[in-house]
């Protein structure tokens, strides 16, 4: 009845294989690509900027928070990348690197256990109109970090965004629709965002810091003070004031335990609130390939397990830059990321027998206080000031109270289990806005260290991709004919029996 069809893997037309592929055109990725090219390896660099507006609306991975100007102030926003980002890519091209901009990498597929039929390690990539596959022999992932998001009443309003998002909108796209910003946090991410805002003519009303001391580097903080930007210490957010826009932020002083002193609450006028609590690694592209992910608080939480060359447990895959781990020190000193990138490229060259000799030492930055520990201090104070009925997951409308109620029903402390129960993290941002807050809430409620928990699953596509773009349009007719209808049905007389299979009533 049903067709028996020839077994064949539906494989499509692929781009010619490039031996080294680098994902991410930041400092680490460009340094890696340039070094690999300098060592004579053929290199392709993929960078997702400029992002389409639809990608931006999915907050991937930048928390743009609808603060994107309707019309970018700079018409070049959709042209070649600007500033340092553009210079880095131009330099890569000068060294012979093939540079694909406006191209996001959404999948990473590796032959291995239970995918033995995959011919090559391959990346799924897409631009605005189509997707395709790029085979690689070596992969250097430099996917950067994403904004660590903690919620407070009003945080979903247009006008609230993340520091990475602000950085991209200000520096890269010239498209930040705001005039007066309040920045939450005082680490190097916050200080840098404040400087960038001032440089682009956006006023910075204040930085808010929950701790009694500035987290970031003293000289940068002093420079801001000199520019007239105050840092309000031992304060937290009570709520954002506004309806369809931000008009002000209401802040309140906290004591040493994070408890708010109600009498101290006051409003600060602003149209933009920037969350600069910190940056955590984008580990998705490593995780979906099967690279082991471990919890390392000193590197920003869940990170790929790497050796000193930044090589993952899959020998062909390296991870460098913020994607390998974030720190205040690396934020201050871009040379660290660049050194990681170069060292990974040299390790690949050594694999190929193209060079020998000792590797360049890369400093291992260690923060006084890791980002998630700092975030816990913030979350504690935000929880006391803002309460439990605050959205954690705006995609699926899940509040802190619902998360904590679900935790109380028992089971292992697992983000995947929590996702099943509450849908937290199941929405269109793919958990990028709620994952860290959920992790902290789970750890707190269970009284365990996050290191004792299983990481939540990471899934391809690591960016939501339209069906029309993801579709394998190059699929061959043979591949279409080999498509099974729920496996291939077993017919009477199927092989494997010593004689004809017994009929249904043989049992009786």
């Amino acid at each position: 009845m049903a067709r028996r069809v020839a077994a064949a893997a539906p494989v499509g037309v692929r781009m010619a294989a490039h031996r080294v592929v680098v994902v991410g055109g930041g400092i680490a990725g460009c340094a890696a690509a340039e070094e690999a090219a300098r060592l004579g390896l053929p290199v392709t660099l993929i960078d997702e900027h400029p992002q389409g507006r639809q990608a931006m609306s999915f907050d991937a991975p930048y928390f743009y928070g609808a603060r994107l100007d309707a019309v970018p102030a700079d018409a070049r926003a959709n042209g070649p990348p600007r500033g340092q980002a553009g210079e880095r890519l131009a330099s890569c091209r000068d060294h012979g690197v093939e540079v694909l901009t406006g191209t996001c990498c959404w999948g990473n597929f590796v032959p291995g256990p239970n995918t033995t039929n995959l011919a090559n390690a391959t990346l799924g990539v897409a631009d605005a109109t189509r997707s395709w596959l790029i085979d690689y022999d070596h992969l250097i992932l430099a996917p950067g970090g994403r904004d660590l998001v903690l919620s407070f009443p009003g945080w979903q309003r247009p006008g609230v965004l993340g520091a990475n998002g602000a950085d991209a909108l200000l520096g890269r796209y010239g498209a930040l629709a705001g005039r007066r910003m309040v920045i939450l946090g005082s680490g190097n991410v916050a200080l840098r965002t404040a400087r960038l805002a001032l440089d682009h003519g956006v006023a910075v009303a204040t930085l808010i810091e929950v701790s009694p001391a500035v987290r970031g580097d003293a000289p940068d903080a002093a420079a801001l003070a000199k520019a007239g930007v105050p840092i309000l210490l031992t304060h937290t957010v009570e709520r954002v004031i506004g309806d369809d826009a931000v008009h002000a932020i209401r802040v309140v002083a906290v004591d040493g335990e994070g408890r708010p002193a109600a009498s101290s609450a006051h409003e600060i006028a602003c149209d933009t609130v920037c969350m600069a609590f910190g940056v955590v690694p984008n580990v998705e592209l490593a995780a979906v390939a099967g690279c082991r992910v471990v919890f390392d608080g000193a590197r920003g939480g869940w990170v790929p397990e790497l050796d000193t060359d930044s090589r993952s447990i899959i020998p062909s895959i390296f991870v460098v830059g913020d994607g390998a781990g974030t720190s205040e020190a690396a934020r201050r000193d871009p040379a660290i990321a660049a050194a990681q990138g170069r060292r990974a490229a040299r390790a690949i060259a050594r694999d190929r027998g193209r060079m020998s000799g000792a590797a360049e030492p890369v400093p291992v930055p260690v923060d006084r206080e890791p980002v998630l520990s700092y975030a816990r201090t913030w979350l504690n104070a935000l929880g006391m000031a803002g309460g439990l009925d605050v959205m954690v997951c705006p995609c699926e409308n899940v509040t802190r109270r619902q998360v904590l109620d679900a935790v109380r029903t028992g089971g292992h402390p697992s983000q995947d289990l929590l996702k099943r129960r509450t849908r937290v993290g199941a929405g269109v941002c793919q958990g990028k806005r709620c994952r860290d807050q959920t992790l902290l809430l789970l750890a707190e409620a269970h009284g365990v260290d996050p290191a004792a928990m299983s990481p939540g699953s990471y899934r391809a596509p690591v960016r939501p991709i339209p069906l029309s773009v993801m579709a394998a349009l190059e699929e061959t007719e043979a591949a279409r004919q080999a498509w099974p209808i729920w496996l291939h049905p077993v017919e009477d007389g199927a092989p494997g029996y010593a004689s004809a299979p017994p009929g249904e009533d043989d049992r009786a």
Partner: protein
Amino acid sequence: MRSADVVIVGAGIIGLASAYWLAKAGAKVVVLDKGRVAWEATGRATGFLSLRGETPREAPLAVAAEALWATLDDELGHPTEWLPGGRLWVALDEERMAELAAIAPGWCAAGIPVRVLDGKAARDIVPCLSERTLGGLHTTRGGHANPLRTAQAFAHALLDRGGAVLEHTPVTGIHVEREHVVGVATSSGTIATDTVVVGAGPQTGLIAAMADVRVPVAPVRVEATVTTPMPRLFDVAMVGHGLSLRQTRRGNIQFNGGPHEWIDVDAVSEPAKPNTPIVRNMARRLAELFPSLTDVHVLRCWAGVVEVTPDQTSIIDRVASPDGLIVATSSGHGFGLAPAIGQAVRGLVLERASPIPIDGLGLARFGNLCPDWRAARRWSAGAYNT
């Protein structure tokens, strides 16, 4: 030593449903899993209840399950997202349409009324279907639910009834004395029991082998995909264009299907479940099926490991030896049947007989199966899409 009336191996939908009904009947039940609840076959299920017109010996279970599903949320006290939306098969080409028309009489003969539809009638049921749809088969019977939430609902309800679920506790042996089960060895000690239910999905064969019982199952890796949520489009469980799909209560379209890789598993560790670029071919098929929805985004892909029996039909049996060993596996289509399979298992445990007819689902039918049946089928580990 810990003891239990019944130890159930496998915290998938079949193990948990069996455990729930047994606990409700008063048994002291412990469910063991090498990993987490619903992490293998159940985690990959599309979530359908089919009335099994194509395998009439499973139809009594399906009919019983349909009745149980109707009140399952109230029974369990936890949500399953059951939607009795019926089932629709559609054809986009003449060959497939002829196949569908040919199977209709069999379903009707099995007591499940199906209608052969033309393209317009199919689009009346699912308006977003392609204009290329030539027609299909429709039954108002059956429906779909959320596999993860349902498994979790059974697990919670089991705990509510005093049962236990021990995750990350692999079984390392089944103790048998004088042809009777006397205990189960686990990674954290032995549990004394005279009854073991093996409902371990892809690992069922390996666990049963610990008691020298041969259960022929072949594990296979298959892939699954889900879109971003949309407003309500259709309620039916749908099969067409090489995909099985449903719209979840939240509004996402879950769509499964495509080429598969036969694999081996072990009894103690979680098998690798990677996706492959096939997800692009799946996306293309959904785009062709629903041309007006091509702007909707693919949100997540994942893969699962499913067990397949030699005749792609359930195995539900209380074996003759050792006494006290019950096997329940459903060849990759057990999700919808599970509430009834659980009741069949309860009967086999407590009364040595199923309250629902399970004739022809025993292991005896594999008596003359060759030891190398997987190789003969080209279902051995590494074979692709055979």
